[in-house]
Structures are given as structure tokens and as C-alpha cells.
């Protein structure tokens, strides 16, 4: 079967199920007695197994299968939920995720899971004495195993009986000094297969072959021959000490059980159907299609700009009205299209509970993770990119921020540290905050480190405000942890985080209170592709400045430009801010307007900081489609991208963040 066309579906659903397993496991850990949760997890694992087997990803199937076995024991209350069980299940889920990711990158999805499988098996076996209680009651020499059949085997036995076969349970003991147990087992099985069909062996055939049994084992044989005949034949095999037989009837209880399970599986099916019905109001759309639609729409926005230009030139009333209407409609369309691309930030946050749990364990810390506003929506592209920086910040908070329980106790804090992950909308931005109640940032240490690393001089350091010092940690080559741990990396961290966030058009800042904790806040734009800009003219070129970073536009009289240490500054509402000429920064030739006495200035802001950009003239506000300059032109200073204007020409978009230091 060609399964390739289902691969996307498989990947999507696998991720969903793994996420579900994850979530439920976390809850289960807190409420170990909640059997319904185990059922949920079991269901997800079961579905996963089925899908993986269909798609021929055997490693996934075998691991989920083993998980299922353990879960089954738990839900039948034969095994209790211990940390060990949870840990190993988490590990299994992690491996599964890795395999799924591998497949999504066109990999084979293969991974050595034998280690995990065997550990799960051990857990499963660890509980077997409970299930095999009757074995202990019998004298050891003729120990038998209470054999229970699953539904399928039960049916086989019943059918065989109808056809005149009989089911015999044989309890076989080998001699104590038997050396080649596996060989003897093999010989016994050969005899048995001759006589009929072995439908079940306890311990399992594999275990028997690997000599993983003491010296007793039991089998159920379907045969037409008489018990005695079979018995005799087995005793002919050397080193067999004793064989006892009993005719085997599947216990009533068993069949009831199996009925129960079949009922359960029916209800599973029902609930699956129900959930399908419930979700019928949404459809899965390939992201590529939405991106395709978005691209087409961008083209249309460009043409709309062109039409607006033309209609203004022509000056026909009807035409302008139509164009205006078109503009309004496309505005609405744009809004809708953007919401289509929006996904809840939950998608990223989801993976954190487990990560935090794991890290806390590794570091022997106690951490409560609180997630607020997971439903906040963000552009898909941003969500895809924001994961890594967040991981980094969280690791940082856990590793460097939150103290060990002992230390916390000493300082009169609760033993468990709290890590809060918060997302919310504000204006045209989304804020994500990571707050911990740990040690906070040690400013002295930051300063010393910055000086040691040559980031600033002692004199300058004295003058820095507390804010500035804290934000030094985003400079490159910085890490304050005395020992480098593999949790939070090697000091290449926060500057990478910062540049990543800035490349997404966002900003990051940190606030901290020594001894009380620190808060990293990330501000991100709602969307990346369409933005409002102010078009300005510099020399012969038109540039766009994003409205989101413009504080105000002013006409500045030349005399009002003052100089501080030869650097031009201006007075803006009582604040002294630097003035820079855009023409100089962009190195554009032929600056004609330089001599005029009144200069148009765009005041841009980055956080609290502001600067005035001198331009030649303002043109107006416009919605434009931000296009990247491509991989060939990367990292160009002060340029965040380009756009196509109504006349078909290309304008560059200024990145004011780069201009304010």
C-alpha cells in the first residue's frame, strides 16, 4: 500500500495524540488514582500504535505496543502509578516524538527503542507475581501457571472445542540439573506441535527460548489426541522431570472480562465518532495553501496600491469610489486571512510542562509551572520561530533563577519555585512573559562579568542604570552562571535569543529584583507580512518606516538642533533625543534638501528610547506587504525588508530598532 499520501495526516494526528498523552500524563502524575486518565492515555497510545503499524513505522508501533501493555495493567489496577512508571512513559513519549519528527523531515522514523521497550517490559513483568498468585500455592516441583487467554485466544479455544478438539493445559517441569533448557523447550515444543497446536505458553515462547524461566512452564495445547498420549510423548524428551495435565476451560470470569473489554472498545469507537462529529466544523488546511492564498493576496494588495495611484491621477469619481470600496473589502479580507494564519500560542507552550518537569528533576529543584493565556493567538510563522528562544529562557530561569529547595527554605520562600508563563494581547502586539520567583539577576556579578569580558569599562559601568545593567545579559558572550551546565548552554544564549526575537520584529527586556525573581518580557508583532508604514523620501529613494515604531513626526527648525559632544540632538517634549540623518546612515548620494531650514523628522522609539530621523520629505501612510530581500542579501544594517509600491518600484523598509542603540 502506498502510504505516502497519508503521511501528513499521520504526522498531524500522531502529534496530537502524543500531546494528549503528554498532557494526561502530567495530570496523572498529580492524581495517580484517576483511572479515566489512564484510559485516555491508553486510547491515544492505541490509536498511535494502529496508525504507526499501518504506515509501517515498526519502532513506533513496538514502543507504543509496550506502553499499551503497561497502561493496560494500570487501568486494570494490577499496577499502581509510580514515579518510575511515569518517568519511563515520559521517556517513551519523548522518543516517539523524536521519531515522528524524524519522519516529518523525511526520515525513516527509525530509532533504537529496544532499551525503552525492555524497561517497559520489566515494569510489566514486575507486576506479574500479582497476576500469577495461584502459582505460589502449588508445590514448586509441579508449579503451574494460571493461564489466562485474551479474547482472540478464547474464541479459538471455543471454536476448536466445537470441532472436537480438546484444550489441554500442560505444566512441564525440567530437571533441576538441566543444562540446555532452551534446547529442551524446543524439543518439547516439537512434540507438541506434532500433536496439535500450542496457542499459549506461559512464560511466553520468546522468554522460554531465551531461558528466562526457572524450570517450569505451562502451555495450552489444542489437540485431537488423548491427554495420556501427549503426556507420554513429552516424557520421552530427556531431562523432563514431570508433566501434569488438566483439561482447560476458559474461566467464565475471563470471558466476562473479555466482554467488558469489547464493550469498552465499542465505547471507544463511539467516543471517537463523537469527537469526529464535534470537530466537523473545522477543516484541516495545509499551511502551504494558506501561504499560497496569502501570497496571492499580497499581490492583490500591491495592485490595489497601483489602482489607488491611478484613480487619483485620473480623478474620475466613480472610479475612485469603486477603488475605495475595493480597498475596504480587501482590508477586511486581509483581516480574515491573518486570523486564518493565527494559531494559539498553546502549540508552543504545550511542550513546556514536561520540559520543566524534566529539568526540575535533573536539577533537584521543585518547580510549579503556571501557564496563563495559552489561548492567545499569534501568527503561525511567529509561533513556529518562538519556540527555541522560549525554551532557552525557561531553561535559564530554572537553571540560574530558581534556587534549590534548601536555599529557598533558608531565605524564607516556599520550597517550590514558581515559574509563570504568560501570554496576552496588547494593541498590535503580543506579549509573552516568563517570570520566576528565584534569585533574580545579580547586578554586581553582571557588571563584573561585563567588565571582565570587555563589554564596558569600570567608569561607564558606574553610570549605568539598573535597567541597563540587567539588559547587558543580552550582549553576546555573556553567561553569569559560575559553572557552565548543559542545561542552559555555554553563554552563547541570551544574545542569540535576542537576535532571534528581533528578527521576528519583536523586542525583549528583563526586569529583576534581587532575591525576588526576574521577568523576561517579549513583545512580538501580531503578524509579519503586512504592515503599515510611513513612506518618506530620502534623496531619490522612497523608504518605509513601520508605523508601530513611530512616536510622532515633526518639522524641526534647523536652529533647534543642538549638539552634545558634536552629536546632534533635539528637544522632544522635554526629552533630549539624538538626531540622525537617514541619508547619512543609508549613504545615499545627492542630499539636496540638506540646506533647507526646516527639516522633516520622524521620531522613532524602541522601548523607552527614542531618536529623530531626518528625512527629505514625508509622502504618506500606506499598508504594504513586507517582502524579504532573500537569502542572498542577509543581515543588512537598518533594513528589515522591501516592499513593492503602486508604481511597481521597490522600496526598502527601515528597521528603526537597529538605529537605536
Amino acid at each position, binding site marked *: 500500500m502506498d502510504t505516502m499520501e497519508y503521511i501528513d495526516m499521520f504526522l498531524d494526528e500522531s502529534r496530537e495524540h502524543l500531546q494528549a498523552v503528554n498532557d494526561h500524563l502530567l495530570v496523572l502524575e498529580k492524581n495517580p488514582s484517576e483511572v479515566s486518565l489512564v484510559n485516555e492515555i491508553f486510547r491515544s497510545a492505541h490509536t498511535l500504535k494502529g496508525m504507526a503499524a499501518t504506515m509501517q513505522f515498526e519502532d513506533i508501533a513496538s514502543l507504543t505496543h509496550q506502553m499499551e501493555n503497561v497502561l493496560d495493567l494500570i487501568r486494570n489496577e494490577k499496577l499502581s502509578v509510580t514515579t518510575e512508571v511515569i518517568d519511563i512513559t515520559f521517556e517513551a513519549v519523548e522518543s516517539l516524538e523524536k521519531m515522528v519528527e524524524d519522519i516529518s523531515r523525511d526520515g525513516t522514523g527509525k530509532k533504537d527503542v529496544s532499551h525503552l521497550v525492555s524497561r517497559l517490559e520489566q515494569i510489566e513483568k514486575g507486576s506479574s507475581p500479582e497476576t500469577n498468585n495461584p502459582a505460589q500455592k502449588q508445590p514448586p516441583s509441579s508449579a503451574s501457571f494460571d493461564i489466562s487467554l485474551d479474547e482472540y485466544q478464547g474464541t479459538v479455544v471455543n471454536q476448536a472445542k466445537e470441532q472436537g478438539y480438546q484444550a489441554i493445559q500442560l505444566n512441564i517441569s525440567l530437571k533441576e540439573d538441566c543444562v540446555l533448557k532452551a534446547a529442551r523447550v524446543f524439543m518439547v515444543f516439537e512434540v507438541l506441535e506434532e500433536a496439535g497446536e500450542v496457542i499459549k505458553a506461559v512464560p511466553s515462547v520468546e522468554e522460554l527460548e531465551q531461558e528466562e524461566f526457572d524450570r517450569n512452564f505451562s502451555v495450552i495445547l489444542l489437540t485431537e489426541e488423548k491427554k495420556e498420549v501427549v503426556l507420554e510423548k513429552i516424557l520421552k524428551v530427556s531431562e523432563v522431570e514431570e508433566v501434569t495435565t488438566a483439561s482447560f476451560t476458559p474461566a467464565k470470569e475471563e470471558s466476562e472480562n473479555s466482554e467488558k473489554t469489547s464493550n469498552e472498545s465499542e465505547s471507544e469507537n463511539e467516543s471517537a465518532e463523537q469527537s469526529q462529529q464535534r470537530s466537523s466544523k473545522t477543516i484541516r488546511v495545509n499551511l502551504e495553501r494558506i501561504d499560497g492564498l496569502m501570497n496571492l493576496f499580497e499581490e492583490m494588495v500591491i495592485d490595489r496600491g497601483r489602482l489607488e495611484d491611478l484613480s487619483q491621477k485620473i480623478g474620475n469619481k466613480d472610479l475612485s469610489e469603486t477603488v475605495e470600496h475595493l480597498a475596504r473589502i480587501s482590508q477586511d479580507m486581509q483581516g480574515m486571512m491573518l486570523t486564518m494564519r493565527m494559531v494559539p500560542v498553546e502549540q508552543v507552550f504545550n511542550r513546556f510542562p514536561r520540559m520543566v518537569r524534566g529539568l526540575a528533576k535533573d536539577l533537584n529543584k521543585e518547580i510549579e509551572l503556571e501557564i496563563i493565556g495559552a489561548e492567545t493567538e499569534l501568527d503561525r510563522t511567529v509561533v513556529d520561530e518562538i519556540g527555541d528562544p522560549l525554551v532557552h529562557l525557561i531553561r535559564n530561569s530554572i537553571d540560574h533563577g530558581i534556587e534549590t529547595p534548601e536555599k529557598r527554605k533558608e531565605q524564607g520562600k516556599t520550597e517550590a519555585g514558581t515559574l509563570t508563563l504568560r501570554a496576552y494581547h496588547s494593541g498590535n502586539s503580543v506579549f509573552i512573559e516568563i517570570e520566576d520567583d528565584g534569585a533574580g539577576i545579580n547586578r554586581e556579578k553582571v557588571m563584573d562579568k561585563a567588565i571582565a569580558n570587555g563589554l564596558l569599562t569600570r567608569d561607564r559601568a558606574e553610570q549605568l542604570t539598573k535597567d541597563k545593567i540587567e539588559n547587558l545579559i543580552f550582549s553576546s558572550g555573556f553567561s553569569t552562571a559560575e559553572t557552565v551546565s548543559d542545561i542552559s548552554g555555554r553563554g552563547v544564549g541570551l544574545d542569540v535569543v535576542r537576535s532571534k526575537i528581533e528578527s521576528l520584529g519583536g523586542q525583549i527586556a528583563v526586569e529583576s529584583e534581587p532575591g525576588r525573581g526576574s521577568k523576561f518580557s517579549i513583545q512580538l508583532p501580531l503578524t509579519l507580512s503586512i504592515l503599515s508604514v510611513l513612506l518618506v523620501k530620502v534623496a531619490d*529613494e522612497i523608504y518605509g518606516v513601520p508605523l508601530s515604531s513611530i512616536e510622532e513626526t515633526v518639522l524641526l527648525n534647523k536652529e533647534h538642533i543642538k549638539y552634545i559632544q558634536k552629536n546632534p540632538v533635539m528637544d522632544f517634549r522635554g526629552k533630549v533625543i539624538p538626531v540622525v540623518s537617514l541619508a547619512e546612515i543609508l549613504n*545615499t548620494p545627492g542630499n539636496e534638501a540638506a540646506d533647507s531650514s526646516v527639516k522633516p523628522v520622524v521620531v522613532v522609539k524602541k522601548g523607552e528610547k527614542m531618536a529623530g530621523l531626518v528625512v527629505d520629505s514625508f509622502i504618506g501612510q500606506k499598508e504594504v506587504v513586507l517582502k524579504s530581500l*532573500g537569502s542572498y542579501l542577509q543581515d*543588512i544594517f537598518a533594513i528589515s525588508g522591501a516592499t513593492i509600491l503602486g508604481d*511597481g518600484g521597490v522600496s*526598502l523598509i527601515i528597521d528603526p530598532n537597529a538605529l537605536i542603540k
Partner: protein
Amino acid sequence: MENTIKVIVFQLHNEQYGVNIQQVRSIEKLLNVTPVPGTADFIKGVINLRGDITPIIDLKDRLQIGKTEYTDHTRVLIINIESIQMGLIVDNATDVLDIEQSIIDAPPEVIGGVTEEYLSGVAKIDDRLLILLDLERILNFQELNEVEKAAAKQL
């Protein structure tokens, strides 16, 4: 046919150069180019090519054999290599030729002032000499970024 390649023939100064037609998306007249500040000299800027922002470089400048003076014959070869699209300014794009692999020789060390590293071979057709360019090498943007950085430092 397996042993022949189709090349687009163009001129730089008076030499004839060729690039594999597979890598060429179209040939355009030189449109108005928007300069991009802070980039290397040979990057002339970007153009709007049917909605795609496309960087344009002066091929002569890139090969360090002078600069192009724009004339009516000046053309832009739009090339696509590994998802990068860009335009090369050339003096004239004249011809499409089928070349047999067998007549392509390894490049001599320096030809027409272009160093060997940018060439993939030389083909001799009748009495003409056709220099085949290694576009991937020319567009190696990692090296290019270094060039950019060097340029930025000078600023």
C-alpha cells in the same frame, strides 16, 4: 543528446560567456533598480520581478573585470540556483547554443582576467572561445556575506 548542454551566451566586454540554460529563468531589460545601502559594491540593488524582490549584481564587478556601463543592449539574466533568485547584469545576451560535453576543457588559470575559481570550463566552437561560468561559485553567498561585512567595516 545526453552529452550536450544548452547554454545561454552573453557578453562581458568582448568576451563571450556561457551559463547553463537550466539555471536561467529569464532575460530582462534593466528596470529601475532600488539601491540597497550597506552592501558590497557589485550589488546594484533590488528590482521587482513580477512581485518577487530580486537582487541584482553587476557580473563584471563581481568577477573583478571592471564595471558595466549601461547601454540599450544591457540585459539582466535572471538566474535561479537553490531557491536563490537573482539578476546578473551583462553587456548583451546573444544566443543559445548546444555544446557537446566533449569539447569543454578545464579552465586555464586566468582567462579574460577572470580567475579560475569562477569558471567551470572553456568550450572552443569554431574559432570562438566560450567561457563557462560556475554560477554557484559566483553566488556563494557565504563568501559574499564576508565581502559585505568587510564593506560594512569600511563604512
